């Protein structure tokens, strides 16, 4: 059980309630599938493109045209179902969801109503060190709608049908989540899974992953669920967290002031940090679902299901466990690395080329993630291959460069995408291990710092460190530090 935060970002006053409340959250997540062509025609699904250039008579619902189901869409949805432990229906069908809106050219969305492709699955999440299983009610396939553009002309709205007919899966969860944090972790896990199995790129900013939130509150200990609201228009994890906290507090305040929560659809305005009622249950559409007569039932036989199962890659959870056992990584590091497929792939690319997995992991967890964050980049955009990171680690392990130099080499690798061996060679960054050269350096340092020499001789050990630093400085960090130590002692003892 999680308590509701008593303060909410942006609000000054502390609020205290008569009762302790529990928030109950279920999600409807839409993920655009990354198939090459649309769900019922051969138009490209590519994002962007001039308005209405990725559209044809079929996806714009012209008179007389007919849909033909893209088999890949079924395959991708089954992949998603298998990766989330769902039952895959041998027989499912598609239905029409009827409503009028200009972005929906047929005035119905082809979706699945009572016989979805996948059902009864789950995803395990971990929040505050505790495992929790979140139920997946169903996953079904459907088509996306077009996009209205209201701002371009004064007197009219324009419609772009490029997105119309792009395949989606809708993932409906059980009302198993109890906090914004659980929702966030669930969505992160879901996103990682969908990316791992290569069915969706899950780019929230492009709308290829969208979540609607069904939320209710009830006094702790009460069995019956409270009245829920549905919140739409959530396009970032941050917005989702804020919306959940905001809506939970709104509902609690309604209850606390003796009111009742109305079942309705609300729109979250992330800028204002408030939700607005869109339509109540009474105003809700009657979608008049009925079986799509232009399409045949979907049959997924055991053989096809097995083929899809066999083609699934290792999933994040399994990968995480493997990183812990195979590379001896701490659980925290392993879960960060496997949280993004691109990052995990990068890691594996690196450890193929070095035995020092721990060092690779440290570089990723440290310098690499920090740099990505600074530059607001995603793991997909790392500008050099994992192999380069392995080379960098090897250069350090072999003593070819020092740790200090390595940081500089890493920076150059990131900015120029260059092979670290080339950088080291081109810029002469190898550690200097030539004894006679280093003796000359040490002698020069001693000559220039008579006071420190005197201090050392009078027993001040600190002065030794200063002299080492000076010698390293003299060699621009390239000197082999062990050798500097040794030569310096020898020269001072002379």
């Amino acid at each position, binding site marked *: 059980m999680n308590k509701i935060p008593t303060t909410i970002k942006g609000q000054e006053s502390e609020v205290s309630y008569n009762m302790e409340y529990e928030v109950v959250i279920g999600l409807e997540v839409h993920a655009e599938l990354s198939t090459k062509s649309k769900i019922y025609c051969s138009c490209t699904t590519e994002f962007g493109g001039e308005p209405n250039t990725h559209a044809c008579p079929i996806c*714009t619902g012209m*008179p*007389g045209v007919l849909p033909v189901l893209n088999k890949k869409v079924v395959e991708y949805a089954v992949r998603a179902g298998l990766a989330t432990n769902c039952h895959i229906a041998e027989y499912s069908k598609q239905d*029409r969801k009827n409503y009028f809106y*200009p972005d929906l*050219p047929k005035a119905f969305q082809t979706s699945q109503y009572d016989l979805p492709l996948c059902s009864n699955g789950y995803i395990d999440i971990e929040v505050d060190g505790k495992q929790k299983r979140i139920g997946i009610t169903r996953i079904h396939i459907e088509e996306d709608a077009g996009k209205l553009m209201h701002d371009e002309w004064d007197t009219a709205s324009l419609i772009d049908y490029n997105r119309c007919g792009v395949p989606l899966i809708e993932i409906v969860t059980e009302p198993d989540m109890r906090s914004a944090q659980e929702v966030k972790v669930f969505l992160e896990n879901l996103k990682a899974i969908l990316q791992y199995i290569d069915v969706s790129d899950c780019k929230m900013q492009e709308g290829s992953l969208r979540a609607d939130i069904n939320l209710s509150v009830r006094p702790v200990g009460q069995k019956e669920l409270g009245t829920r609201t549905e919140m739409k228009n959530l396009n970032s994890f941050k917005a989702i967290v804020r919306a959940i906290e905001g809506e939970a507090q709104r509902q609690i305040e309604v209850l606390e002031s003796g009111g009742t929560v109305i079942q309705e659809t609300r729109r979250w305005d992330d800028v204002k940090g408030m939700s607005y009622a869109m339509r109540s249950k009474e105003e809700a559409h009657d979608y*008049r679902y009925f079986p799509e007569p232009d*399409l045949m039932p979907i049959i997924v036989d055991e053989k096809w299901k097995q083929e899809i199962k066999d083609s699934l890659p290792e999933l994040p959870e399994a990968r995480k466990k493997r990183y812990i056992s195979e590379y001896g990584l701490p659980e925290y590091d392993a879960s960060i690395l496997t949280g993004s497929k691109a990052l995990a792939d990068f890691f594996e690319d690196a450890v193929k080329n070095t035995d020092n997995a721990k060092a690779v992991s440290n570089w990723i967890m440290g310098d690499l993630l920090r740099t990505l964050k600074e530059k607001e980049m995603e793991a997909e955009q790392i500008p050099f291959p994992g192999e380069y990171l392995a080379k960098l680690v090897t250069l350090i392990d072999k003593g070819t460069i020092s740790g200090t130099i390595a940081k500089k080499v890493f920076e150059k690798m990131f900015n120029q995408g260059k092979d670290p061996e080339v950088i080291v060679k081109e810029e002469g960054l190898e550690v200097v291990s030539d004894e006679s050269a280093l003796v000359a350096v040490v002698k020069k340092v001693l000559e220039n710092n008579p006071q420190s020499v005197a201090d050392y001789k009078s027993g001040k050990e600190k002065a030794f460190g200063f002299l080492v630093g000076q010698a390293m400085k003299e060699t621009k960090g390239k000197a082999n530090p062990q050798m500097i130590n040794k030569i310096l002692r020898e020269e001072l003892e002379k």
Partner: protein
Amino acid sequence: MELYELTVHELSDLIKEKKVSTVEVTKSFLDRIEKIDSKVGSYLSVLGEDAVKRAMEVQEKIDKGEAKSPLSGIPVAIKDNICTEGIKTTCASKMLHNFVPPYNATVTKKLLSDNAVIIGKLNMDEFAMGGSTENSFFKPTKNPWDLERVPGGSSGGSAAAVAANLTAFALGSDTGGSIRQPASFCGVVGMKPTYGAVSRFGLVAFASSLDQIGPLTKDVTDCAMVLNCITGYDPMDSTSAKVEYPDYTKALVNDVKGLKIGIPKEYMGEGLNSEVREAVLKAVEVLKELGAQCEEFSLPLTEYAIPAYYIISSAEASSNLARYDGIKYGYRAEKFTDLLDLYKQTRSEGFGTEVKRRIMIGTYALSSGYYDAYYKKALQLRTLIKKGFDEAFQKYDVILGPTAPTTAYKLGEKVNNPLEMYLGDIYTVSVNIAGLPGLVVPCGFDSNGLPIGLQLIGKPFDESTLLRVGFTFEQNTDYNKRARIGGEL
């Protein structure tokens, strides 16, 4: 004899033997349309010069030996709910009065690749809803046998054009009898093929699970020739059947010996006009004499076919026609206040009464709280009706009966009584519900001299047996010859 009086196979022979040119043939029909169609009103668009140009191109191909299909150079007219690239396809509706599809229906493509010459688009009941072609937004079509009477519908333009020799053959569509009933009223041959045998791609949908395109022709031989062209699996239509499609002309055998023909007694009872009944019974006698085994049997649930049909077809129509909203193409109301008002005004003004009636019936039947009572029940009935036919076809090769309870009625006679109009579909709708093929051939005339059509119903994908029975009947009676009097107009 004029060229326009000839059948497809007669014209095809003349063209092949170079006795006439395709241009002569096309012009013969175009001239006749020019002269006569103002009386009949079967065409919504006529492709004058374009058709002649096309005929010339086809003639060149024939001369080079590149056009071998028997339909090469044969004029065809197409019901206006079948898409023709660059040619208006209106569905006889104000809603699509200006719609020019940028694509061809699969059947249009097939006709073109067989080098047929499209000479025009034919009138119909708006969106194929109706049985008299009086529901056309543009004009009613008249029955060539009596211009005071309806040609039937919804493919009334197609049937009238064939009957009046205004085209060599026509394509129609049949959702609940829309090819067969007008064929019966106009004394021509009409076939509704098995559901899935002809691609529906490019047929503007009325009721997707029932619609089927089929030919209207002057005789059974022509019917078989056109079927050879238009049937076949189409990857663009998910409901298209992947089966072997035979050469239908092989079925044109003058022999019905040993064939088992069942006559549902429910088709011969109350409500059936006595002259129609007599003509059908006489046809049974003819077939018996030719060696067929005919007997009456009971096809239960016949009385439920009409309610089941009107619920299923209207439900699908309410969804199929929702796309006509004034946003993308077709009619848009001139005055509106906001989006909802745009929808309301456009659809109120753009659709005719019958279409609106069906949309309302269908919307109601699918509404939450009513779905189980109406739509779901209708689907259950559909299963049972299919089962009834399956059982009958264990015993019989062909089911025989009337096509419509009456012959052609007067224009305006039933306009204000939709229910009576709906009951006229009693013998045809079951065939669509069960997805079966149905063939109509002329089998007599009533006391007013109006043609009567005999309906033959077959097993799924067994159009061949229907053609065989129809052909034999045609060869051994003079009804077809007597029915080909359109030239008197």
